[in-house]
Structure formats: C-alpha cells, structure tokens
C-alpha cells in the first residue's frame, strides 16, 4: 500500500483560498469549552445547595425525626419534634397520584399515538395537553379545591389526602401524557408492521409489542413527573393540606400534611432551631426522592430486560 500524499489545500482545485482548518478548530474548541462550563456550573450549584443543606441540617438529623409527630417550636426545643406525619402524608400522595395519573396518562397517550385518527379533534386535544403542562401548579390547586375537595360547592372528598393526590395527579397528567407519547413514538413502525402482517389486532400489536418496547421510556417519564409532584407545595396548600397536624393519615379520606409543607412551615418561623429542623426535613425529603428514583431505575431495567433488542 502506498500512502496517499496530502495535497496542500491551496492546490486543491476550486479551493484557492488558504486553509480554514485552524479557524474551524478554534470554533470547535470554544464550543466544547462552553459546554463544559455549562455542565460545571450546573453541578456546582447542585453541590453548593446540597452542602449548605447538609451543613445546616446534619446537627438536627437523627432517627427520631422519622418517628416523632410534632412540629411545634416547643417540640423542636425539647427534642420531640419529627416529620412522621409529613413522611406518611407524602407517601400517601405519591401512591394516590401515581395510581390515578399513570394509568390515565399512559392510556391517553396510547389512544393519541396508536388509535386516534388524524382529525381536528385529536389536534385540539393535543394542543391542550401541551398547554396544560405549562399551567402554574397553583392553578391546579384551585381546580382541586373546586372539584375534589368540594364538587362545585357540594361537599365531596373534603380536605383529604385523596383530594390532594388527585390534584397532584391532574398536575402531572399532561406531563405523563407527553412523556409516554414520546416513548411510544420512538418505537419503530417496522415493529408494528411486523405484528400487523401476522394478523394481529391493533390491541395485540399495542399490548404485546409497542408497550413493552416503550415501557422503559414511559416509566422514566412518569416516575420522574410523579417524583416532582411530591415536592410541590402550592397546589396541596390551596387544595386543603394542613400545616400542623399530628395524626398521620391512615385512610385516603383523612387529613394530611405533606413533608414539603411542613418544611415550609418550619422555615418561615424566626427561630434558628426551626430552620435547622427544616433543613433536616429537606434532607429527609431528598432521601425520599432518591429512593423513588432508585425504584424507577430498577423498574426500568426490569422492563428493559423483557425486550431483547
């Protein structure tokens, strides 16, 4: 093999000008630098935030925080305060939100992607779903108050954890629909064709092939949005969550006081000890979130293993 001589750029026909390669390399280096800076900036902010919270809350953190149920200043000062009510309320909320929003959201996404005809009705629904995902969360709180807590003035679910969970469900519904639609759209149409060509019904194609192939994407999107929902304070506050309640809900119609609300309540008090207590609450909240995300990853990997790409 003879090596090919590299012709100087100026000698290539039609490329009379001097080489622009050095300039292209500089542009490339600047771009790379900017992206690294963006990544470092984001990571730095996150680390600062975490460090500050840990530094502030670590002193107050102990196992009693998980089991004690009082959040008053007195309880904080004599060491009997804790987030038991908040933790249990938030777990109830996650459960109800997920149980409501995931089936409805994924179902709507399946209809829109796999069944819906391409007509004006579908388009109107699609545009509305996209718009709803941008509506401020407090508006959903008002909706929950007006529909779930009291149904247009009639007593309905009351200020219950069920009403709160459904409210949060409405909040994440559009996000779940959009995430699930994206996941379904990513399934290659050749897979659908293969199944249809064997005499499968639309339901068999969707249930046996499209859903399993889209499952890991759907799970990632839905669990991330549900996890986001448990951090929400404004909508549940409007929809009737209590800030100071000592009894954790034991059924869906009980009152509740979710963790972020308890943290918020402690933060706005002037005492330093309350702020420390709140910081410890934030650490618990983040641990809870991390656990939920971990569950999401495990579920996703299991869904992935069923599909043998």
């Amino acid at each position, binding site marked *: 093999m003879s090596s090919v001589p590299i012709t100087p750029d100026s000698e290539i026909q039609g490329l009379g000008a001097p080489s622009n390669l050095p300039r292209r390399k500089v542009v490339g280096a600047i771009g790379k630098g900017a992206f690294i800076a963006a990544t470092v900036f984001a990571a730095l902010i996150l680390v600062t935030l975490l460090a500050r919270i840990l530094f502030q809350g670590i002193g107050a953190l102990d196992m009693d925080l998980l089991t004690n149920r009082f959040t008053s200043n007195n309880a904080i000062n004599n060491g009997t305060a804790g987030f038991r009510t908040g933790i249990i309320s938030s777990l109830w909320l996650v459960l109800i939100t997920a149980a409501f929003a995931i089936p409805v959201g994924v179902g709507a996404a399946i209809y829109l992607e796999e069944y819906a*005809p*391409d007509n004006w009705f579908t388009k109107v629904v699609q545009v509305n779903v996209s718009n709803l995902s941008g509506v401020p969360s407090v508006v959903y709180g008002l909706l929950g108050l007006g529909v779930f807590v009291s149904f247009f003035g009639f007593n309905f679910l009351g200020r219950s954890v069920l009403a709160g969970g459904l409210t949060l469900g409405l909040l994440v519904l559009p996000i779940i629909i959009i995430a699930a639609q994206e996941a379904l759209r990513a399934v*290659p149409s*050749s*897979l*659908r*064709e*293969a*199944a*249809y*060509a*064997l*005499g*499968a*019904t639309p339901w*068999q194609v969707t249930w*046996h*092939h499209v859903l399993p*192939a889209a499952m890991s994407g759907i799970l990632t999107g839905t669990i991330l949005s549900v996890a986001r929902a448990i951090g929400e304070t404004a909508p549940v506050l409007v929809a009737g969550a209590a800030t100071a309640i000592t009894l954790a809900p034991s059924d869906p119609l009980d009152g509740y006081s979710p963790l972020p609300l308890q943290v918020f309540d402690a933060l706005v008090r002037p005492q330093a000890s309350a702020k420390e207590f709140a910081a410890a609450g934030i650490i618990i909240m983040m641990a809870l979130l991390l656990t939920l995300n971990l569950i999401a990853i495990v579920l996703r990997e299991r869904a992935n293993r069923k*599909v*043998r*790409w």
Partner: protein
Amino acid sequence: MVATSDTGLNQRINVRESDQAGQSLGESVISLRDVTISYGSYDAVVGVSYEIPKNKITAMIGPSGCGKSTVLRSINRMNDLIPGAKVRGTIEYHGVDVNHAGVDPVEVRRRIGMVFQKPNPFPKSIAENITWGAQINGFKGNKKDLVEQSLRKAALWDEVKDKLDQSGLSLSGGQQQRLCIARTLAVNPDVILMDEPCSALDPISTLRIEELMRELSRQYTIVVVTHNMQQAARVSDQTVFFSLSDKRQGILVEASPTQQLFTKPKDQRTEDYITGRFG
C-alpha cells in the same frame, strides 16, 4: 466491470427455465382489476390490473417511485395503516374483495403474509418470534414442533437450533430475514408478499433467500417486489413491469410470463427498461 454483450437479452440476463413459458400460468389466487391507489388527493398508482397465479412467484419490477410497493401493500391491506391511503378498483382474493366492508383486514393479513425490506424480527427470542403470530391466532398445538417446522421450511433450523432462546436480533441480516419468513410461515398463510426482501442483504444471503423462495413456491403463492431485474429473471414465473406515466403516476406496463417478458417483451418501454436504456 463485467463486460456484457448486447447481442441478445438471453445472454444478458439469465432467465430461469420455466416449463410453462408462453403458456397460461394457471389458476389465479389474487386478481387486481383497475386498481388505483391514492394518498390524499394524489393518485400514486393508476389503473393496475393483473392476475397472481397460484403456487407461482410473481415479481414486480420497475423504477423507483412507480408504486410497486404501494400495490403490494394494498393486497393485504397494510396500506390501511397509512393515513390518507385509499384504494379504488377491486383486489380479489379467491373471489372475495379484500376491501369489502365486511372483510376484516386482520383476517386478510393472516392469510396473506408479508416480509419486509428491512428484516424486522421482534425483540424477543428466536422461538418466540415464531410462536407469537401463531398464538395470537389461536394456535393450541405443540410449540416446539411449530418452531422446528417453520425454521426448517425457512432453511434456518440448522443454524439456530442450539440458540432458540437467544434474541432474534442477535442473528445476521440474512438469518433475520429468514427468521421473518419462518415467522410468516408459522401462521400458515396462503400467499406471501415480499417487499424487496433482499435489498438489505449481501449476495450470498440473497441467493439463499432466492433458493428458499423457489422451494416455498411449491406450497405458497409468492409476490415479490424487487429492484433487481436479475433477481426477477432468476426466481419468478411471472413478471409485472411498472413504470411512470407522463403525469408521474405509477402505471402497469406489462405483465407476462417471466421468460417472455425478458426475451420477447410486448411493450417498447419494457424492452427499454430491461436492456438498460431507461431506469
């Protein structure tokens, strides 16, 4: 570069010896009559009529964009999946109009199977690739036997018999395509439609698929769309030549027994195409 002489079509293209050359190709399974297929307001293919003979291979050839695949996909109503696609005229399968309101496309596709251009096995094991189609259609028999029978018919058994639980996608391209054929055979169809089944394969895999098609034509009716004229000449009994009209719409130019089409084409446009003056 292989030198080709222009002295005769027979020398340029090795036409398969057919014992029925020049004669009728026998009982037809599918008849297309004055079929026009449109996407929205655009007529992609206009006025297509031909017969698909039983237990024979019919090849559809022609330049890109002339609607070969469109016609093929309308035979088992795969075009239903494309929004805006509409078929006029009649496509009869054993005398039944497949587009009749009372006909379920799901049933049509079970009887008229399809193999696609790009091999598309399911992301499942090799065995599940075979059994899935049969099971959704109510298969209750022995799955192991079904897997072996189907893979044997598709000339794939010996290569995969020790790894039936591996993913269908772990196979090579040619093996994947034969797996797709085996999967189609497992639902016991009557007709198999193939949409350029070898265009993504190397020459050796192509040859194996072609041999397989000949073998399968004893039992099944096969319709194949191909870009490769030599392939049409090698494997098919009947060749249908499509071209584009002045209005850029697909039209059928000639449907003849393969040997006749490649040696004594009835239409000047067919001759131009197969001799390489066009397309």
